[in-house]
């Protein structure tokens, strides 16, 4: 479904959104935007408010503060049905009618979405998740991974503009996981906005244009590389065969090096502003000093480092 006329703004806009269940804060003061066609990762520990956020944006839970726009529509009770027409949500649990066949499950949801050409859409959705041959199988007899794929097929039926996927690869084997990654890439190419909740940081790093890290409040939003740069100083790691005689004299004399520390007996971490510029001059200085250089390389921080750093900061500050 590609309805024109409301795609000028972002696919999702959240401003100061919050949800409380009595005294318990599920999430609060959340603000971010997701553009059309973007794959947006939503990361956080258990109880951080990821699922409640998805449910709130999916009109299942009423926010207690703030505002949001989903698929071009303000998140209000009047717009609930129309928003649900434009989005699809795959919850963490596949939620299939286990006594019904795969095709019957999909038919039920095609009817609920009032999908034109239901049988055709069901075939396409089954092909997309490689389940054409299992259409008549009863869902209760399927493995967890296959059920997950049926749930994926279900959210593809209505051709949504915004797709919320909650742990879509949970329980899938590596091959099936790769299939899901390809599916998400394909949806991205078609302009579908994907809001991906995941615990797999490598998955977020691989699939997402930007990620948000939260722990009831939003800790950071941005492309993984930008978050790395923001949180961690750029460093070079230097390894030599034997320890340097006077590393301080060597490294502090280099203009490209802002600081250094030892990281093992013959390993040094140099803080630099531009690794590409600093690496050649460091190598030249080491050779000139007669050091036997094993390696000079840029230190890489993964999204996991970013995640742990942010969550640790949160824990240290004592905020829930």
């Amino acid at each position, binding site marked *: 479904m590609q309805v024109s006329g409301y795609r000028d703004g972002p696919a999702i806009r959240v401003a100061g959104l919050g949800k409380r269940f009595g005294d318990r804060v599920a999430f609060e003061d959340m603000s971010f935007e997701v553009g059309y066609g973007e794959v947006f990762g939503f990361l956080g520990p258990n109880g951080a408010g990821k699922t409640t956020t998805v449910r709130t944006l999916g009109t299942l839970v009423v926010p207690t503060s703030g505002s949001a726009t989903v698929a071009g529509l303000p998140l209000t009770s009047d717009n609930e049905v129309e928003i649900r027409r434009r989005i699809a949500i795959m*919850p963490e649990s596949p*939620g299939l009618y286990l006594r019904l066949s795969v095709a019957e499950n999909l038919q039920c949801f095609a009817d609920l979405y009032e999908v034109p050409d239901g049988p055709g859409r069901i075939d396409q959705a089954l092909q997309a998740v490689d389940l054409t041959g299992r259409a008549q199988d009863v869902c209760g007899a399927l493995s967890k991974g296959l059920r997950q794929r049926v749930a994926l097929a279900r959210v593809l039926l209505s051709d949504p503009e915004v797709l919320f996927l909650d742990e879509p690869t949970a329980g899938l084997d590596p091959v099936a996981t790769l299939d899901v990654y390809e599916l998400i890439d394909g949806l991205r190419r078609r302009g579908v906005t994907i809001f991906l909740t995941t615990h797999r940081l490598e998955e977020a790093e691989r699939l997402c244009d930007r990620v948000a890290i939260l722990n009831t409040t939003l800790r950071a939003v941005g492309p993984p590389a930008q978050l790395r740069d923001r949180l961690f100083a750029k460093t070079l790691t230097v390894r030599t065969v034997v320890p340097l005689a006077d590393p301080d004299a060597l490294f502090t004399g280099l203009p490209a090096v802002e600081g250094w520390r030892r990281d093992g007996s013959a390993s040094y971490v140099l803080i630099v502003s531009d690794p590409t510029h600093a690496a050649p001059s460091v190598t030249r200085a080491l050779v000139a000093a007669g050091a036997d250089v094993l390696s000079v390389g840029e230190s890489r921080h993964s999204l996991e480092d970013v995640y742990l750093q942010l969550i640790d900061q949160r824990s240290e500050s004592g905020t829930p």
Partner: protein
Amino acid sequence: MRAIRRKEFREYRRNGNLVFATAILPLIFLIQPVIQVFTLPTSASMTLRHEHSLVYMLAIPVLVPAVLASYAVVGERVQGTLEPVLTTPVRPEELLLGKAMAAFVPSVFVAYAVFALFVAIVEFFARAAVASAVIQGPDLLAQLLFTPLLASWSIWVGIAISARSSDPRTATQISVLMSLPTVAVTTLIALNVIPATLGIAVGFGAALLVLVLVGWRVVSVIFDPERLITNTK
């Protein structure tokens, strides 16, 4: 609504427990009066004329939908299917009406079918005097009119209980238990303890109609998607 109804019918057919419960109750309410009618001597026909044996069978449209409706919401919750359904454009009211219709149609069909079978058995195989004492015109009319009303009331009670329960079996037990006062009323009318006058019938019908409408409103309020999905409030 049609999508929900179609899905519900498919699920009913493949849910052995539900099929058994739906079948066993009408059988009990068919076999017991049949045996009674066939063991009665002709002289008992005078006593039977003062009773309303057919009204006794109104327990079927009370109990069968109670069993079916009690599964409506809690069954979805236990399977984890309620959340995916509520993420579709279907409105909660449409979902409830679809589920109510899915319980209503088979319940009324079973009630009428069992009733027709009973009347046919009595008409063709019972002693003529007994048959004419049992099959009375006003009772037939009462059966026809009260069956859908009783079924509707029972369905809203069942769905209300289902929306507040977390276990399907508990929901069924409470739902059947909650139906017993209505069964007691129909039984008392059948035994002529409550006189089956036109006034009583009209009053009973009006009260049921009001209860059905109130039941629908109450169920609409009880069915809170946020509470059902998040287990809060």
